[in-house]
């Protein structure tokens, strides 16, 4: 097991252009499951590939287990990687796929069978060892890829969107399996995804990236409840946080905190809300519309409600936001600022 650290890591693909990854510094904890979360083009995969040694950094340092690995080839970094496509070797059986890293690392041949069977049983694919990858389902392929990664007991696991090729139903069970797998092996893992649900569900901590820059590193609770800036506030959460400009500050509140006034006690901000659209999602309603009157007149807002029976399209209702849930951001820097008293009306 080992800690992964980067210092001012930068990757520029085209000279003179903005870096795909820009001065990224972070440090994992021992045995942690760290998630790189960001939209496509945020540099999260490039960052992972630099850690793996598949991409050469333009500048900056990468340390694995305290050792500078910038000049080491992937094979010498004691890492294992699971690719988005799984990258199984199509001409080799499952057994030979899993044994390949052992062969490549010159592990004595007589240990191969024991180790392959250990990895296969850990992932419940002991019965598939003689098959070829093309004879496997998506979920089975993923397990083979994981078994191939675990078999040589790497210091660090790197996972590049391993669930994105699975259908929605399989994804939930595969996610659970991955979590159980990480708990049982306890190896430091870095997991890349653009899916905030995956990130929130699996991550011990989340590194939020956009355009090659780190926006926040924190636990799922921290990044959701205390977003560092407007990007984090809107990227996490579905629907995203409501952001409204109010003079020299941007005020943010989550849709689940924007509620009909009857439901709420304590200190609140009252707002008139005109319903423009209603979506029924089974367990909840997503109601979008505009605020009416006051300084926020005609600003768009979204509310998430357990029930919306009493609401109707184009109706105007009394809504409130609890004061303790309000977030404040600086319009110039987009950074979060401390709470302040503001004039609402």
């Amino acid at each position, binding site marked *: 097991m080992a800690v992964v650290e980067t210092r001012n890591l930068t990757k520029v693909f085209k000279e003179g252009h903005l870096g795909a990854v820009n001065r990224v510094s972070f440090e994992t904890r021992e045995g942690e499951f760290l998630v790189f979360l960001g939209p496509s083009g945020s540099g999260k995969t490039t960052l992972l590939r630099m850690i793996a040694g*598949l991409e050469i950094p333009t500048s900056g340092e990468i340390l694995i287990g305290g050792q500078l690995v910038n000049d080491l*080839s*992937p094979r010498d970094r004691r890492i294992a*990687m699971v690719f988005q*496509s799984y990258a199984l070797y199509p001409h080799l059986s499952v057994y030979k796929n899993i044994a390949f890293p052992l062969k*490549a690392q010159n592990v004595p041949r007589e240990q191969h069978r024991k180790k392959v069977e250990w990895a296969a049983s850990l992932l419940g694919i002991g019965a598939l060892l003689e098959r070829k990858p*093309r004879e496997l389902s998506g979920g089975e392929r993923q397990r083979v890829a994981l078994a191939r990664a675990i078999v*040589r007991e790497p210091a660090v696991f790197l996972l590049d969107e391993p669930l994105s090729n699975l259908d929605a139903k399989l994804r939930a069970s595969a996610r659970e399996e991955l979590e159980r797998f990480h708990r049982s092996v306890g190896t430091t893992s870095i997991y890349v995804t653009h899916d905030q649900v995956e990130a929130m569900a699996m991550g011990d901590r989340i590194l939020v990236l956009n355009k090659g820059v780190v926006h926040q590193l924190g636990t799922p609770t921290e990044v959701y409840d205390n977003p560092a800036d407007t990007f984090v506030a809107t990227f996490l959460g579905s629907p995203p946080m409501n952001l409204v400009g109010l003079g020299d500050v941007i005020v943010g509140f989550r849709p689940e905190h924007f509620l009909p006034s009857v439901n709420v006690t304590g200190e609140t901000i009252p707002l008139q809300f005109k319903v423009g659209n209603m979506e029924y999602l089974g367990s909840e309603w997503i109601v979008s519309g505009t605020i009416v009157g006051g300084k926020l007149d005609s600003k768009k807002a979204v509310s998430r409600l357990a029930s919306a029976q009493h609401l109707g399209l184009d109706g105007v209702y009394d809504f409130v936001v609890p004061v303790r849930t309000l977030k404040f951001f600086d319009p110039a820097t987009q950074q979060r600022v401390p709470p302040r008293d503001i004039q609402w009306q």
Partner: protein
Amino acid sequence: MAIGSARFKSVGAGQSPFLSAAMFAPAALYILLLVAGPFLLAVFYAFSDARIGNAELHFVGLENFRSILQSPSFRVAIRNSIIFTIGSQLVVIVSANILAIALENTFRGRGLVRFLILLPWVAPISLGAIGWKWILDSIYSVISWTLVALHFFKPFSAPMWLGEPHLAIASVLLVHSWRVIPFSTVILLAGRTAIPKDIPEAAAVDGAGFWRTQFQIVIPMMRPILSVAVLFGLIFTFTDMTVVYILTAGGPFDSTQTLPSLAFALGIQGSDLAAGAAISLFLVPLLVILAYFMLRIARRAEVS
């Protein structure tokens, strides 16, 4: 799919019953007149005593085959055909793989290099062979001139590339390789680019170095396309007579004669049509075996 094929049928067969026959006719005519006709004629001649300038024709049974099998130059021709075909393919596969690996990476001027490598394939075979004839010429050879200039040989004592049997065999073999390398390189390059990039990357992360990645992952994955390249190369070389004919005309002392060039020498130049036809018929079973394997590979590629 069902709708598409139904529509296709109505356009092809329904509207005009003659259309499909008309579409087939050129291919059928080509095969009948230019392939089947000469082939049957060759079979006919092989069992006769046909000679150029002799109007009479007698059936002689297996006499032609018997006399061919006894002739030493025929045995040399068979041996040479096999040496040239297999030897040049070995050279081709190794060089084409190296070239394909080199051309896979992007570098400055890659387009120009690719063009230059493809040239031997694009140029007419006779033109290339004549070029090589001059390069290997006994008096004007550039190679000899260079070796003399570098003091490997004294003036006028450089080897006769096409004049000594062993050197001539090696020269013909290498010119054959030079001829097929571009074709194989292009095929292998396509095979390489078809392999998803993350597979060699996964191998690198798994701990494999360059050679292990090539020999245990990339080349085994290219096996179907590699066999296509090899089979085409085998057939091109095996049936070719231009290179031998231009470089050595089979000499010295028939030492570089191949089956096609011997058939030409005896049948056309020597006027013994029957012998030439019998020799060319020896090519048929070998080519049938090659064709069988080609079709099998093509089918397997379709299935998977």
